[in-house]
């Protein structure tokens, strides 16, 4: 059974602007925030997984996006080194929480920006890592050193899709769905080289963060607003669970950003 880490949105809000989605003039509607997060929590709970919760901390509104806590493989946890000072305060809380639960915490060098699962997703036995807006490409090398796996670094070119998990979602049968224009030409080529059966998401659906989905076996929990993608995935035998995510989209996040796998992979052999 998969284990997931979530963080209740008690302190969530748009308090700064560190991506094109965020605008302090357009705050989140608190009751709706609670309702949408509860919707996600309940949906995931109804699927085959176990959910752990970390206590939210005041003044860390984005702590709700646990995907950026770090990357967990087996019993090892690589905490994030956030690029923006606004989020840097989250890292010690996540690291301590993981350590208390017996995970081996492996920090990367402080000068290497790395934003966890938000920029590092396994597709098959390859770890696809995004770089430029948030994570540094040099952090990928350090992650490869720690994990001993093949890391494919792909450049993100559209600031709206600043983490790889906003535009790329690997599937358990070896494919993925993605928004190709979020990657540079070399990134697109290398993803095509390594994965077969790629499902291109049209821009009008990608902007609803349709790729920011939590895949649990044959179940896919994703933000609503992507009827074409849902139809394609259902044709391939997946069950889709679209959820309203409007309040989290205001911060540039959705289902996957709100979730971290513990671990994302048991091992990389």
């Amino acid at each position, binding site marked *: 059974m998969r284990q997931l880490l979530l963080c209740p949105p008690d302190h969530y809000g748009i308090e700064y602007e560190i991506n094109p989605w965020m605008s302090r003039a357009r705050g989140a509607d608190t009751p709706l925030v609670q309702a949408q997060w509860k919707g996600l929590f309940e949906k995931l709970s109804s699927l085959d997984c176990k959910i752990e919760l970390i206590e939210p901390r005041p003044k860390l509104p984005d702590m709700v996006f646990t995907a950026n806590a770090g990357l967990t493989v087996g019993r090892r946890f690589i905490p994030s080194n956030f690029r923006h000072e606004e989020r840097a305060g989250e890292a010690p809380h996540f690291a301590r929480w993981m350590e208390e639960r017996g995970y081996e915490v492996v920090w990367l060098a402080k000068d290497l920006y790395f934003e966890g699962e938000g920029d590092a997703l396994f597709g098959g036995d390859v770890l696809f890592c995004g770089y430029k807006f948030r994570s540094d490409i040099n952090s990928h*090398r350090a992650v490869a050193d720690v994990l001993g796996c093949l890391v494919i670094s792909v*450049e993100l070119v559209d600031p709206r899709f600043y983490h790889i998990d906003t535009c790329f979602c690997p599937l358990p049968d070896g494919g993925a769905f993605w928004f190709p224009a979020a990657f540079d030409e*070399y990134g697109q080529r290398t993803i095509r080289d390594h994965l077969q059966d790629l499902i291109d998401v049209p821009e009008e659906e990608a902007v609803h963060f349709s790729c920011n989905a939590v895949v649990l076996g044959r179940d896919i929990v994703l933000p609503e607003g992507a009827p074409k993608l849902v139809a394609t995935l259902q044709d391939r035998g997946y069950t889709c669970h679209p959820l309203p995510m409007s309040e989290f989209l205001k911060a540039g996040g959705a289902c996957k950003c709100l979730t971290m796998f513990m671990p994302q992979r048991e091992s990389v052999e």
Partner: protein
Amino acid sequence: MFSETVILRGHIIDSLILPKVLDQILTQGGDFKIGEIKIGQNRVDQSFARIEVSAPKHETLDDIVLRLRQHGAEVIEKADVQLAPAPADGVFPKDFYVTTNQQTFVTFNGAEIEVHPALMDCAVEIDRESRRATARKFHEVRRGMEIVVGHQGIKVVPVQRSTSHTDVFEFMSTNISLEKPKSGIIREMATELQRARAEGGKILVVAGPAVVHSGAVPHLVKLIEWDFVDLLFGGNALALHDIENALYGTSLGIDLKRGSLAERGHENQMRAINVIREAGSISRAVETGGLKTGIMAACVRKGVEFVLAGSIRDDGPLPEVITDTLEAQAAMREKLTGVTTALMMGTMLHSMAVANLLPARVKTLCVDMNPAAVSRLTERGSFQSLGLVSDLEPFLRELTNTIAP
């Protein structure tokens, strides 16, 4: 060319980072050389590449490197040159770096500076304030000047040999071609001169008095009149024999038409010197009509600059002859800017002296009837020299016939 060395590490092959970086260097107007590459054997093994990135301008290189850093390129910090003060006027510090005639860069405060001029057998002076690197001869150095010592922080960029089959220097570089058909080589030399002129390069002619003795004056005059000569270097003898010939029809007393000693011919040289000294200078003698024909007169009429360097056995000398060797060297060096091709004929001493002042990028054509002179000139380290063993008159006759407009 300015350059930086960068290192790429990681899964750079599978991620297509290496090809991306190389493509970006080229599309941004740079160039690269892969110094070292290690490709991981297994799927999870990381690869490594050391790449020398170069660009014609410093700003272009900075832009390229800035972009490459985003893709994980680490820049290898360059070590600065080491400096020591000159202990006295005219003396370099111990271990001073000796220049070549190749384009040279020194790293100072982390930035590359080109050494000017590209002159061999000098030391490099660094001026901290103006951030200039200058090649200095012994006599130019002053006590306390900061001079580069050792080899750290120095980059020499050799002239690339042409790989084009249309370039004469490609197939005969530094060959004196004794056994090759002369007319073919002369044709190639003519093409080279035409190309230099078409491309706006300056053509330097270094000539000895043999041009006059061999009866080649009319041919060289034609080259001057057809604008194939921008600069003439020689000694007292070249000018003097030319003027003696122009005024009296003899060269060292020999009647050039008949080839025999003219009556009282030995006096002609002295009388020629006197005519010019009386006029005040060669230029003045031409302007006042005292000197009408010959190489020097053609130069004055066409405004071709000349430098005449003196030597210990000179008669006279003529007023324009610079008798101080350091001064003569400085005068030559000053005029060499912009020279792309040098035709050196019939004077080993002047040719060697000039060759030592030329940057390696200047193409040199050497013609002498003495094979030893030709080989010494063509083998002195110039990357683009072409030699021909020939008497000067037939050479220049054929060259002018080929070039004739």
